């Protein structure tokens, strides 16, 4: 179980773990607060106070210059944003990134892991070592190497398409393909890692269940559907939750390095829009208002995901 899972998708098993039963309630002590101070101070200074400030800024107009005044404009920033087609476009693209990641972060890895469960020994170790590598490659490096592979003139993928007799594709320059390309690069980093997570979870399934089902005459598919998938549900939900909550953030570096949100804003997602409003057009108010909308939206999604996990995850305990 990962830390993320333990925290945001608590299992019944984890909840049932007895918290040090012998521990008695002690009188107030200053000691724990001293231990907590560095972490709490840093999180306050760099996360929570800025969050409140961003909320405040979302009602102001300000160009981020320390010398220029902040002007209170009430809900105007929000009203403008909701009316802007840019904002709607960015939200749609965010949805596209998130849904587009699912095949690579959940669906394909799940089936590859089940399909390849018999692998053992040396071969398994080698595959494991190889498919994990993209996970630790820096996003900027990943962006640059895919930019080379997909280069419209001499990239190896383009040459491959030529060889197969297909037309060349402007992977990063054609508004029809750029969004799919960036989603692919984001997913490329995850596919191997997700496969390994599913493999580990799948290998952890008690083989007695499988044996019993086989003796009862269950088919291979029947075993997958009725035993493996339910018992893999915590991992499925974990990876789905991470994809939903962080997928659009993971793509930020690729957008920044490769397309700057273009062509024709086709790859701008909500997080990139925040960045552009803040650091390109220097409108702190708009950026903060869009940030609050994103924060509220993702907060609701997170709550929904946790509820779903509590309700539907099946644990073998």
């Amino acid at each position, binding site marked *: 179980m990962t830390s993320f*899972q333990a925290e945001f998708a608590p299992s019944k098993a984890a909840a049932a773990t007895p918290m040090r039963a012998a521990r008695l309630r002690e009188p107030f002590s200053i000691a724990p607060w001293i*231990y907590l101070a*560095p972490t709490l101070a840093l999180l306050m200074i*760099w996360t929570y106070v*800025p969050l409140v400030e961003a909320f405040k800024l979302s009602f102001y107009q300000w160009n981020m210059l320390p010398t220029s005044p902040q002007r209170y404009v009430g809900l105007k920033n929000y009203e403008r944003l909701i009316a802007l087609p840019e904002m709607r476009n960015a939200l749609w693209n965010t949805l596209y990134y998130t849904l587009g990641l699912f095949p690579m972060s959940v669906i394909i890895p799940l089936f590859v892991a089940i399909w390849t469960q018999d692998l053992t020994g040396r*071969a398994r170790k080698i595959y494991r070592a190889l498919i994990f590598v993209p996970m630790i*490659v820096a996003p900027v490096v990943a962006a640059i*190497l895919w930019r080379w592979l997909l*280069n419209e003139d001499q990239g190896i993928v383009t040459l491959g398409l030529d060889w197969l007799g297909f037309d060349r594709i402007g992977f990063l320059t054609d508004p029809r393909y750029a969004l799919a390309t960036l989603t692919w690069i984001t997913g490329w980093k995850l596919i191997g890692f997700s496969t390994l997570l599913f493999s580990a979870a799948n290998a952890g399934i008690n083989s007695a269940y499988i044996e019993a089902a086989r003796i009862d005459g269950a088919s291979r598919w029947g075993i997958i559907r009725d035993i493996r998938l339910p018992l893999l549900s915590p991992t499925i939900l974990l990876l789905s939750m991470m994809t939903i909550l962080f997928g659009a953030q993971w793509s930020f570096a690729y957008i920044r390095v490769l397309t700057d949100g273009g062509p024709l804003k086709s790859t701008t997602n909500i997080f990139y829009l925040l960045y552009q409003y803040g650091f390109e057009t220097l409108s702190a108010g708009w950026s903060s208002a869009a940030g609050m909308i994103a924060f509220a939206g993702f907060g609701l999604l997170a709550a929904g995901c946790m509820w779903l996990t509590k309700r539907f995850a099946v644990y073998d305990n």
Partner: protein
Amino acid sequence: MTIENPASSPEPSSMTAPGLVRRLAVHAMMILLSVLSIFPIYWMIVTSLRPANEIFSTALWPASPTLENYAFVLTRIPMLQMLLNTAVVAAFTAGLQVVTGMLAAYALVRWRMRLSGVVHGLIALSWLVPFQVTMIPNYVLASQLGLLDTLTGLIIPNAAHAFAVLMLYHGMRSFPSEILEAARIDGARSWKILWQIVVPNMGAPIASLSIIAFISAWNEYFWPLLLSRKPENSVVQIGLQMFMTQEGNLWGPLMAAACLASLPILVVYLVLQRHVIESFMKSGIR
């Protein structure tokens, strides 16, 4: 290559023809996935070794490999300085996250406070605040503190992370409480218990956290993007992006720069491969 061990395999496939076909298909799928994962990196390395007249070649290995692309990179951007900066930032970030995380996790495990739940929640929820939402106030604060274009500015805001606290917290909770109780009854101070009993037994989670924190700090792009001004004060990810903007289509040098930027991480991976994979698997994505 195909060592099958029927005894440990949950669904032993016999040596019949369908079993063999299935096994071949399994290997085919894993080979496809491996090539997909590793080929882009292989191609980066090969391209970086090609001389200028071979750059568009599709041969799997250059006819006359050369290091001239690397030499070119070193003359154009202060690559070595940036690598050093990145190493400093990543090492300090990882070290500080271990220390702050350890202290906070210990407080949550050792004491039962009225506000434990609130504190725990506050730490955990900070994970869900997207950095892009707080970036403007963060940037303003950093500039007021004079942290723009400094390495300190890159380190401090990341010196504590929810992930670090929670990972160590879950590691520490499995620590047998009887030992802690016994030490307390013996009158040991909490500080002494932490350093003499808890920390020496937390080797595995500390190592995992250090690996993950170091790699994520090395790969971090967004905060340096806001904070950095001069290349010599910046980290390698920013240098790489600047180099791409200036020399975008000099593929050989660009790939050489990308190789230099990933080299330390790939070396760590080669040496600690099993540990790296297991750390990430245990702790999830960050």
